[in-house]
């Protein structure tokens, strides 16, 4: 589904991704781990189309469609979802309004009719119950005054509503207490499906106790330096990132 080949990207004069390759098939869950500054978040942002980064080489395709050619909103409509590490507040804009606009943008792209208000509300309530969210959330400003946990749940809610082909969750587990972490993990697990790919970007293996990955990759200095199954995450947890670095440099 997602094919990244020899991807190179820089911000300013700093090269961050230095030839990264990754292949994710439909139905799979991949975890990307790595120390701070290894390029994890950059990878997520580049795939989503953030223009702070300049792609200097390589390719990114989703089911054969060249993503690098598309604007961020077009990538989204093609089925790319990014769960943000720091979801931004948009005061005054109703959560439900943004959510509905997003659902309709995707529907329009697929040639479907707009969702009607009743159907939308029903769907949103259903998903919110799953995430243990208060329906009042819909009427608040987007992330406005939300706690860290509420923001992350909101990201998962959006993902659940948009039903993306590819979901990249950037440090979704950071700053969550155990209850929120469980709720978020449950939301992610509910979305696992044979026609969807999920990429979890994470620093710790904690989330992986609840969302079991099919593949684990370790990122260091802009490249994937090691790939394996879920046992790799445990090994990392036990031996620390220093171990990977040494192994690479050895």
């Amino acid at each position, binding site marked *: 589904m997602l094919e990244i080949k020899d991807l190179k990207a820089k911000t300013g004069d700093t090269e961050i991704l230095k030839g990264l390759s990754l292949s994710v098939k439909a139905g799979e869950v991949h975890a990307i781990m790595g120390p701070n500054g290894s390029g994890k978040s950059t990878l997520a942002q580049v795939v*989503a*189309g*953030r223009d*702070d980064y300049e792609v200097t080489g390589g390719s990114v395709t989703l089911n054969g469609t060249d993503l690098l050619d598309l*604007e*961020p*909103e077009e*990538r*989204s*409509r093609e089925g790319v*979802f*990014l769960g*943000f590490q720091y*979801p*931004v507040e*948009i*005061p*005054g*804009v*109703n959560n439900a*309004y*943004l959510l509905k*606009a*997003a659902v309709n*943008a*995707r529907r329009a*792209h697929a040639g479907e009719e707009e969702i009607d208000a009743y159907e939308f509300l029903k769907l949103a309530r259903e998903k919110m119950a799953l995430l243990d969210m208060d329906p009042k959330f819909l009427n608040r*400003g987007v992330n406005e005054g939300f706690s860290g946990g509420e923001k992350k749940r909101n990201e998962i809610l*959006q993902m659940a509503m*948009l039903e993306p082909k590819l979901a990249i969750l950037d440090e979704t587990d950071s700053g969550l207490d155990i209850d929120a972490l469980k709720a978020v993990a449950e939301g992610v697990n509910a979305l696992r499906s044979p026609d969807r790919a999920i990429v979890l970007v994470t620093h710790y293996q904690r989330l992986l106790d609840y969302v079991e990955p099919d593949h684990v990759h370790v990122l260091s200095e802009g490249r994937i330096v090691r790939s394996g199954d879920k046992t790799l995450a445990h090994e990392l947890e036990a031996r620390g990132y220093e171990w990977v670095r040494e192994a690479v440099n050895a």
Partner: protein
Amino acid sequence: MSTESKEIESLVNRRYEHGFVTDIATESLPPGLDEDVIRAISARKNEPEFMLEWRLKAYRQWLEMTEPEWAHVHYPKIDYDAISYYAAPKSDSDRPKSLDEVDPKLLETYDKLGIPLHERARLAGVAVDAVFDSVSVATTFKDKLSEAGVIFCSFSEAVENHPDLVKKYLGTVVPQRDNFFAALNSAVFSDGSFVYIPKGVRCPMELSTYFRINAANTGQFERTLIIADEGSYVSYLEGCTAPMRDENQLHAAVVELVALDNAEIKYSTVQNWYPGDEEGRGGIYNFVTKRGDCRGANSKISWTQVETGSAITWKYPSCILRGDNSVGEFYSVAVANNLQQADTGTKMIHIGRNTRSTIVSKGISAGRAQNAYRGLVRIMPQAEGARNHTQCDSLLIGKECGAHTFPYMEIKHPSAKVEHEATTSKISADQLFYCRQRGISEEDAVNMIVNGFCKEVFNELPMEFAVEAQALLNVSLEGAVG
């Protein structure tokens, strides 16, 4: 339906056929201003002596005054001798003959705003015989109003048919000498609207200049007077969401509102005059004096404005809270894009006891525009228990624009409670990327954020107006992020 078919046609309506309208079309005065010009204006309008004296007094005061320079706006000096103070509307041969001859950009805007086709021609100033079927609309409308005893007519008609009311209230809120532009307006005002709501009457509909057939060409020196007698209520809508093609650069209007005991006036404006092009060429200078007098106890005046047009806006709709327990409100959205300059805000003058005022101002700057909020809250020594809450928010779009806030407070009673909150925010790259990642285009994202920012003010507008204002805002800010 022809006007003749109605037997009980009021004198008012007949004047549309044979009155001054025809005169205007035939004769203009040469540019320049002196007492003879004012006499000529007054004579042409068949005004009673008191009106002429009033104009002359204003003119003499204007001569002594100088143009204000304190506002945060810049423009070349206006040559008042180059203006024709009694201009005939452009003759049909000078006007565009069809929509094909109108600036395509203007038409594009009409399209985006969803202006009906028959309206577009009128707004663009196309010479067409029967512009649209407003006569029958207006007639039904007038019947309903006269049943309720409401007077709603042009200012000229009011001078002729209701001289006592005009004499009693004209200039009592904005005196002739109030300021330079108000004095000029008082001397030469062309026409405008007049509203009187009798005691205890709740005006059965929202009054809008749209329904006054003759309103389209009231010209650059418009004058409006609204009187709400004891216990009455009126909601008045001014303006048009579609950009108006206009030949006059300087607009100096005066609006006076009077609310007597237990009366309420709600005045909503959507102003969308031509702002000039991207380089700041052309565009209207909108120098307006708007003031409401809460003269009676428990009276209330509420201003709501959405200002997106004009090259320069200089405007401070104000409330004088004279009656005990009277309430003044000001809700404003002011948008400045490209090279537009806006200096707008309000004045709340608390005189009566337990008077309350609320100010909510939302300023949006984009392009290279400058947007200033200027507000005065004055609590007089006798205004025991006065309260004010001011909220003043600025939103910046892009790097080259500016927002400025000039709040003035003069508190002369120790019991006063005055609160001022101000914020400045920017539409951030993070917000835009967030929305776009969710599949929403950049333009839609900007609109969504801007509308969210203005929601408090839009909520104060009559429903239909609010929808239009929202569409208008979107059009005004098109291409603001680029």
